[in-house]
Each structure stands twice: as structure tokens, then as C-alpha cells.
């Protein structure tokens, strides 16, 4: 089965139709997906702003990261569960949608960015003096901020096309 066929099949499963046709379940999932933004993306944004020296100056990057990621994990758990269920209901239409595709590519870029940050910069973070972020880590922060905005724009726009 091709990926396109698999997406088509996913949209027609009994669970997908049940969610899509439910008066309250679909709005509840959509609302939860949107309102998990501050706890997932928002915590990352605050950490990115900190890396750029724009907030929590004087705090150590390693501490800020631990605190922010603890909450972000909870937010992303809600995001992936609600996002997965929402995708199920619209899988067939989402497959060819340019905004859905862009969103997935952006998420992939963010994943790679996070892994690079984790491997290259996290081991050295405890040694950074407060407020002294290396240039490479700042690049990761700027990339993260820009691409997360892209994810939000694509996510909101694709919902108008279903």
C-alpha cells in the first residue's frame, strides 16, 4: 500500500469517522491542540529567547533548559496525541495539502535542530558563564524561533482548507 493509499484508508477507519462526526470530540481535540501551544512551543520560545540573551539574564542556560523542557514534554505529549487523532480524521485530505506537507517538513527541521543542539551544545552547557551563549547555539535558537512560527502558520492555514 502506498503512503497516499494508507492516508486514505486512515481517514475511513471507523474511529476516524466517529471523531470527525462527533459534535463535541472534534472541537475538544482541536481546542486542546491549540491550547497546548504555550506549554510546548511556548516553553521552547522562552528558552530560545534566553539563549539569545533576551530574558532570564543572569540565570544559567542549563538550569533554564531543564526547567522549561520538563513542562514542554508534557505539552508535546498533548500535541502529539491530539495532533495524531486530528490527522486521522483528515488524513486523505491532509496528504496532498501543501500546508500540511510544509508543517511536517518544518517539524522534521526542528527535530534535527534539537538533536544537533543536544549533541553539540548540551554537554558543554554547564560550563557556560551566565549569559554567554556560543554563536552556534544562538543560530539554533533563531532557527527554532523562525521555524516554530512557520509550524503555527501552516497548522492554522491547513485547517481552513479541510
Amino acid at each position: 500500500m502506498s503512503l497516499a493509499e494508507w492516508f486514505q484508508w486512515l481517514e475511513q477507519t471507523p474511529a476516524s469517522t466517529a471523531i470527525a462526526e462527533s459534535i463535541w470530540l472534534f472541537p475538544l481535540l482541536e481546542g486542546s491542540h491549540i491550547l497546548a501551544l504555550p506549554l510546548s512551543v511556548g516553553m521552547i520560545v522562552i528558552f530560545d529567547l534566553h539563549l539569545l540573551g533576551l530574558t532570564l539574564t543572569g540565570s544559567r542556560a542549563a538550569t533554564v533548559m531543564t526547567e522549561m523542557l520538563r513542562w514542554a514534554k508534557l505539552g508535546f505529549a498533548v500535541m502529539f496525541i491530539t495532533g495524531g487523532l486530528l490527522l486521522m480524521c483528515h488524513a486523505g485530505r491532509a496528504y496532498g495539502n501543501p500546508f500540511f506537507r510544509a508543517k511536517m517538513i518544518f517539524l522534521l527541521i526542528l527535530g534535527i535542530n534539537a538533536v544537533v543542539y543536544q549533541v553539540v551544545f548540551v554537554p558543554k552547557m554547564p560550563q557556560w558563564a551566565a549569559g554567554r551563549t556560543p554563536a552556534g547555539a544562538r543560530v539554533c535558537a533563531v532557527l527554532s524561533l523562525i521555524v516554530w512560527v512557520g509550524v503555527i502558520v501552516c497548522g492554522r492555514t491547513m485547517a481552513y482548507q479541510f
Partner: protein
Amino acid sequence: MSVIEFIRDSQYGMPIVQSVHLVGLTLLLAVVFVLNLRLADVALKNVSLEFLVQQLRRWLFVGLAVVVLSGLLIFIGTPAKYLASNPFRVKMAVLGLAMLFQYGMLRRFAAPDAMPRSRAARLIVAALSLTLWFTVGWAGRAIAFIP
């Protein structure tokens, strides 16, 4: 074509402004989360609430400005639709309450000379504050589903 018409009638006008509204919401409520979680003693315990307020106040206002301005742009295209919407009325009323409550809370709990409060009091205030802000969010989402 005026800005209002572009937002209301073009294919991508409304999605763009709605996206900006969500970016502002992300920033505003992230700061609200951090401040209230600190007040409840469950996050960033190594720094004071006063320090967090001083450091994050700017971003709280940036987020608020973005949601209010984009919200206004959404509203002025079809004011009658929103004024007749029950969730919209709830949203505006609770938004006012949330801002007043948050302001009053920060004045009392994050001032340099603030008197120490019991854990229970801080937990209740943080929970109330987060409930008010997320009621605003849910009421906003409900505009699309409930008359």
C-alpha cells in the same frame, strides 16, 4: 482593497491574522504559565517570583499586544458576528477578569516587600489565574462552534 477587506475576503487574509493571534497566544500564555507555576512552587524554584516578573514582563506585554492587535483585526471585519456571539462575550468578560486578577496577584505576591504567603494560598491563586486565562482560550475556540 483595504486591510479590513483583505483580511475578511481574501483566501489567506484570515488564516494569516489567525496565525499571528496564535503566535501571540503562545508567548503570552507561556509567560503566564511560568509565572503561575513559580507562584505555585513547582517551577524555577532557584529564582524568585520577583526576578521572573522583572525578566518576563516585557514578553508578557509583547504577547498581549500581539493577541489584542490581531484580535482587533479579526473583529473589525465582521463586528456584528462577534457582538452576537455568546462565546465571544464570555471571552471578553473573562479576559478582563484574567488581566485584573493577574495584575492584582503580581502586585501582591511579587512586590519586593510582599509578605510571605502560605503554600495553599499560592496554589489556589495560581490555579485560579490559569483557569481564567484558559477559559479565555476555550471561549475563543468556542466562537467557531457555538452561536
